C-alpha cells in the first residue's frame, strides 16, 4: 500500500540528526538497537515471539538495504522506519486471515462498564500516578503488554497506529481494509477496553 509507505518514509526523515558513519555493522545494530526495536514492536503486537521475529526481519531487511542507507538519518531512525514497514506487513497478514469483528453487535466488555441506563458502573476511578512515569516501571510494561494482548488484532492495530504513530485515519482504513465508520468503532472499543484494563490492573488507587 504505497500511501502508507510514503507516510512512514516522510515521518522517519529527520533532518536534525547528524550525518551517520558509513560501513554499518549488523551485529552492532543488534547490540545498540535490538532492545529498543523489540520494545517498539512489543507496543504494537503485544507478543514477545512475534516482536522478536519482527526485530529479526528488520535487521535482515536493513542488511539487504544497507547500500541505500545514505546516512540521511540516524541508524536508529532508519531501523525504526524499517520496523514500521514490517509491523504493517504483519498487521496486513494477520487481519486478512481473521474474521472481522461484528461491529453491529454490542461489545460485552464495554457494555459491562455501564449499567442498564448507560451510566458508568463503578466508572473511571481516580488514577494513582501518571502513565508517562509508569513506563519507568518494568512491571507496568508487563501489565500494558497483557492489556494490549487481550485486544483483538484489529482493535490493537487500530489503537497502536492511531495513538502511538498518529497515522492519519485514511491510512489506517486502508491498512485494515475497513470503512471510516468501522474504524471509529474499533478505536472507541480499543480505547475503552484498554483504559479499563489498565485501571483494573495498574492505575486503580487503593483508597
Amino acid at each position, binding site marked *: 500500500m504505497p500511501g502508507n509507505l510514503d507516510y512512514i518514509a516522510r515521518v522517519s526523515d529527520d533532518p536534525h540528526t547528524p550525518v551517520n558513519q558509513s560501513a554499518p555493522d*549488523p551485529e552492532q545494530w543488534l547490540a545498540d538497537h535490538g532492545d529498543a526495536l523489540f520494545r*517498539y514492536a512489543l507496543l504494537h503486537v503485544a507478543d514477545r515471539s512475534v516482536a522478536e521475529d519482527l526485530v*529479526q526481519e528488520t535487521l535482515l531487511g536493513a542488511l539487504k538495504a544497507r547500500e541505500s542507507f545514505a546516512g540521511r538519518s540516524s541508524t536508529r531512525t532508519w531501523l525504526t522506519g524499517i520496523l514500521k514497514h514490517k509491523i504493517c506487513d504483519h498487521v496486513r497478514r494477520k487481519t486478512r486471515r481473521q474474521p472481522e469483528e461484528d461491529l453491529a453487535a454490542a461489545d460485552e466488555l464495554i*457494555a459491562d462498564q455501564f449499567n442498564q441506563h*448507560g451510566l458508568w458502573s463503578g466508572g473511571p476511578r481516580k488514577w494513582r500516578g501518571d502513565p508517562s512515569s509508569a*513506563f519507568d516501571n518494568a512491571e507496568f510494561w508487563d501489565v500494558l503488554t497483557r492489556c494490549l494482548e487481550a485486544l483483538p488484532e484489529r482493535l490493537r492495530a487500530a489503537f497502536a497506529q492511531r495513538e502511538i504513530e498518529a497515522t492519519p485515519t485514511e491510512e489506517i482504513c486502508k491498512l485494515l481494509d475497513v470503512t471510516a465508520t468501522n474504524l471509529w468503532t474499533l478505536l472507541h472499543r480499543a480505547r475503552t477496553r484498554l*483504559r479499563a484494563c489498565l485501571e483494573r490492573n495498574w492505575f486503580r488507587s487503593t483508597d
Partner: protein
Amino acid sequence: MVSQYRLGKSQYLKRLLHIWHLLNAPCSEITESISRAQETELPFWERLAYKLHLLYCSACRRYVRHLEALRVALRRIAGELRDPSADAPVGPKLSAAARERIRRELRY
C-alpha cells in the same frame, strides 16, 4: 402545498427529537462521541451535547483525561525508543536466545 408543509413539520419534529436525544445521551454514548471527536469533526449538536455532558459528569471527564494521558505517554515512550540517547534502563529486553538466533541469522 399543505402536504409539503406537513412533511416539513414532521421532519422538523424528527430533528428536534434527535437533538433532544443527543442532549440526553448517557455516558456510554457520550464516550463514543468523545472518541470519534479524535478522528473527525462532530456535527454541531453532537459536539455541544458531549461538551455539556462533560460539564456535569466527572466520570466522563476522567475518561477523557485518562485517554489523553495514555496517548501522551505512548507517544513519549515511542519517541524515546526512536532516540538512542534516551535509552530507558527498564522495560522488556530481547531474550538471550532470541539475540543469539538473530546474530546467527545476520551472519548468513
